[in-house]
């Protein structure tokens, strides 16, 4: 079956190679993000994930495997903030919108003019104290554009709407309390006139939530918590989880020790996808708090899982928990790629999820059934997923223990892949995955909850995983359920991926290389050394001049680059929750920065 499917996919790939992606519209059973409402390729990049299906696939093909070697810098732009640049530049019309890490400047760059000079700059002036409660650098993962408005979140938990043309503030709402450790770093998603946002703070005992705000006024339409009673989680009669483990009343309370859900985490700081046909949004919930799992016996619903919710009402449709009673800080917030394709001979609406725990899940996005969960990276912490019950099986030897160091848990807390999103090309049928090849030694410790301070309860020391290299970039054949190719990277790959119709894959490395690979073979076609490490999300757009551009923010930071961005001391193996120990040499490889690089063919 798989062989047949692969053959079909390759055949289709060949078929559509001559045309652009728009044409796959006519192939309803082909590998296609169509149903997930990808607009026709308009050359813009309106949301961080490019489209509701989160493919990060650009239909532009001017830059292709043959000519990418000639790529040159078109222009650069300094953001003026030398912290981790995780955002995706947003391109709408002739303007590019770039949101920086704290202090969360929003820039509008005029693409119609040579060198793309700034049109305006919006300074939201968030509370500087918020820097103290951002677990892993003061990052922001991008803005979103809709209907002449740009939406973004600030570190001190505000959502702000700005007039795209003038840079004037339209509204702002305070959604969280920094005194409880609540921050916002995620990129909003615009769905049917609503701004969907969530909070961060899983390392501070912050109770996670997702909220839909009216795009015109900022008022909350609905808000769903990730822990607590059903009423607050917006679980109602429509809630039909596929697996027995997720069924029951008030599991957000009963799967926790009394009152522990109030500090239970499950923050929504990652990616949201949307299926217009089913009118469902899909998003993951973060790790339960604290990391020390002994302090929270039970499955800790609804953390470290995925919700499908009605986009209008917020009512939960289904839920699946990647990591019941999460042991390893495996937030379940990674991107969900919505695909329609043949599975087991049937056309199905799928949801593909490369999860932190190293498994690549393929799910039926209508029901929440797990169709497959294949390891895409070396794993010791878990022993696979039981597809009957849907439960992840933990490796008892690697369960963190209080007062004992448990060694060589792979993947480590950041997972085999963290928030940094993958990209899917319908032309190759491959999913392009940035990897983190890091393992960890951990000791669970007592965790003291003091509102507004970290609530972790784990001493962590990370180190290179099997092979000694700390990163990988690979292509995963979804239909064949196997890896197509992989290349090793010295440092963890903390940038997002971009794939274009020119069959080129772009990503950046922690030491500052921006690379272009052949989407089919993984061959390195071109690379450029930027001024700082890259942890941002590359995007492609068609400029007002009709040319294809590729843009990426360079500026090391985030959890992986904290050693550089925060000037941390590698003599302490537990610095930055242990990540510093895995990249003690990063300070020699790069320095802080904050520059937008835009490339084009000459």
């Amino acid at each position, binding site marked *: 079956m798989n062989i047949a499917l692969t053959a079909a996919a390759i055949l289709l790939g060949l078929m559509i190679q001559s045309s652009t992606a728009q044409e796959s519209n006519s192939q309803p059973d082909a590998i296609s993000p169509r149903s997930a409402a990808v607009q026709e390729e308009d050359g813009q990049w309106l949301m961080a994930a490019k489209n509701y299906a989160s493919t990060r696939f650009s239909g532009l093909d001017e830059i292709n495997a043959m000519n990418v070697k000639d790529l040159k810098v078109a222009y650069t732009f300094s953001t003026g903030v030398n912290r981790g640049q995780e955002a995706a530049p947003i391109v709408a019309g002739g303007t590019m919108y770039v949101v920086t890490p704290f202090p969360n400047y929003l820039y509008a760059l005029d693409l119609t003019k040579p060198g793309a000079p700034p049109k305006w700059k919006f300074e939201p002036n968030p509370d500087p104290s918020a820097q103290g409660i951002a677990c892993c650098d003061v990052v922001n993962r991008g803005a979103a554009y809709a209907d002449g408005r740009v939406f973004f979140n600030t570190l001190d938990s505000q959502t702000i709407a700005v007039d795209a043309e003038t840079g004037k503030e339209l509204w702002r709402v305070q959604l969280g309390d920094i005194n409880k450790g609540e921050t916002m770093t995620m990129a909003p998603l615009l769905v049917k006139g609503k701004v969907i946002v969530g909070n961060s703070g899983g390392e501070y005992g912050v109770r996670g939530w997702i909220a839909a705000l009216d795009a015109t006024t900022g008022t909350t339409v609905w808000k769903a918590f990730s822990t607590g009673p059903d009423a607050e989680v917006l679980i109602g009669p429509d809630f039909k989880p596929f697996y027995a483990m997720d069924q029951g009343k008030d599991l957000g309370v009963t799967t926790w020790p*009394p009152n522990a859900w*109030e500090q239970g985490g499950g923050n929504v700081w990652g990616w949201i996808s949307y299926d217009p046909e089913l009118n469902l949004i899909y998003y993951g919930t973060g790790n339960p708090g604290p990391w020390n799992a002994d302090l*929270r016996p039970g499955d800790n619903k609804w953390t470290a899982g995925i919700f499908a919710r009605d986009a209008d009402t917020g009512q939960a449709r289904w839920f699946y928990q990647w990591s019941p009673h999460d042991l390893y800080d495996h937030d379940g917030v990674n991107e969900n790629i919505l695909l329609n394709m043949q599975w087991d001979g049937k056309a199905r609406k799928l949801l593909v999820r490369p999860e932190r725990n190293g498994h690549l899940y393929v799910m039926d996005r209508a029901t929440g059934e797990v169709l497959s969960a294949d390891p895409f990276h070396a794993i010791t912490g878990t022993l696979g997923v039981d597809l009957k019950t849907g439960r992840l099986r933990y490796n008892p030897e690697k369960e963190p223990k209080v*007062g004992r160091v448990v060694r060589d848990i792979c993947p480590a807390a950041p997972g085999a892949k963290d928030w940094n999103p993958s990209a899917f090309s319908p032309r190759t049928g491959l999913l392009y995955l940035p990897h983190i090849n890091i393992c960890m030694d951990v000791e669970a410790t*007592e965790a003291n*909850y003091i509102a507004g301070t970290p609530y972790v309860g784990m001493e962590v020391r990370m180190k290179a995983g099997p092979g000694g290299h700390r990163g990988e970039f690979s292509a995963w054949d979804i239909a064949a359920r196997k890896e197509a190719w992989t290349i090793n990277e010295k440092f963890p790959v903390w940038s997002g991926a971009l794939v274009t119709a020119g069959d080129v894959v772009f990503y950046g490395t922690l030491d500052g290389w921006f690379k272009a690979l052949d989407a089919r073979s993984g061959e390195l076609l071109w690379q450029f050394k930027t001024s700082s490490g890259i942890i941002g999300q590359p995007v492609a757009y068609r400029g007002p001049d009709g040319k294809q551009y590729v843009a990426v923010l360079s500026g090391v930071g985030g959890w992986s680059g904290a050693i550089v961005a925060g000037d941390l001391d590698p003599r302490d193996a537990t610095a930055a929750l242990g990540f510093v120990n895995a990249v003690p040499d990063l300070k020699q490889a790069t320095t802080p920065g904050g520059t937008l690089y835009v490339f084009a063919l000459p």
Partner: protein
Amino acid sequence: MRTGSRLSAAILALFLAGCTGLPAGLDPAGPAAEMITGLFWWFTAICTAVWALVVLGLGASLLRARPADDGASPLDRGSARRISATRVVTALVGATALVLVALTISAFITGRGLAQLRGEQVRTIEITGHQWWWEVRYSDGGPAETLATANEIHVPVGEAVRLSLRSNDVIHSFWIPRIGGKQDLVPGQVNHLDFTIDKPGIYRGQCAEFCGFQHAHMGLVLVAHPRDEFERWFSSQLKPAQAPRGAEARAGQQAFLSRSCVMCHTVRGTPAGGKIAPDLTHIASRSGVAANTLPMTRGALAAWIADPQAVKPGAHMPRTELDSDELNSILAYLEQLK
């Protein structure tokens, strides 16, 4: 053997009861403690007899009538009696060995008996030793029936209980004399102690392994209830803390949440979630404060909060600069946390 031990037990008990009543270690409250006590009396009886015989023998050998010094070389002295002495000594050594074998076997039998007391249906309670207090966690039921409290263990009468003992810092030792022997809490390992209690009541104990400055004030209370009473206690403890009633208590809660208290203590249902010090959600329902160093009275509580270092020098609870209004309001608040 049985009657002998009972008899001597009775005699000794009478002797001891003369002043203060039976020492706690010899006043069993459950089968395990009973077996240990039985073995103790049996050993005591035998050992007392042996000691008495030795002292008698010593006295006799000193006092026995001796012939006048015959002037012989001391080297030859008593040579005539040596053979009989050899026989007696050999016999005594043999008897000693027999007694020791008997004692060893009875110790083994008791040990096995204690091991067999462990029923299959046991309630497990996790005890974690801290300098210098006891964290008590019930986690047998579902996660929502997980209960954390401190320094006071409640158990139903007649039910097999297994304590899981661990330590968070140094070695402590769990010892409540009336329920049986002690067991160390060793960092890096989990030890167990099994017991059943027959009689409802309050049983006191304290840390038995030297654990630092306040080893002397690491008290522990075990309360054995009839089953239904225990269930009532348990379900009331599961509830979050009562909201403060009255202006003073409300001010007390505010003070609690804004002063040092909130750094270490939990009051469930409020933002106070400190886990390095005893859970205070239902502190007023407990019988003691400061690991049972003081009784649970307003005065004692006030003394403890106002100056912990005067009550337990070296303890980890610091003195907080509170004015008397703050102190009183905090007391009012804590007193409502039944």
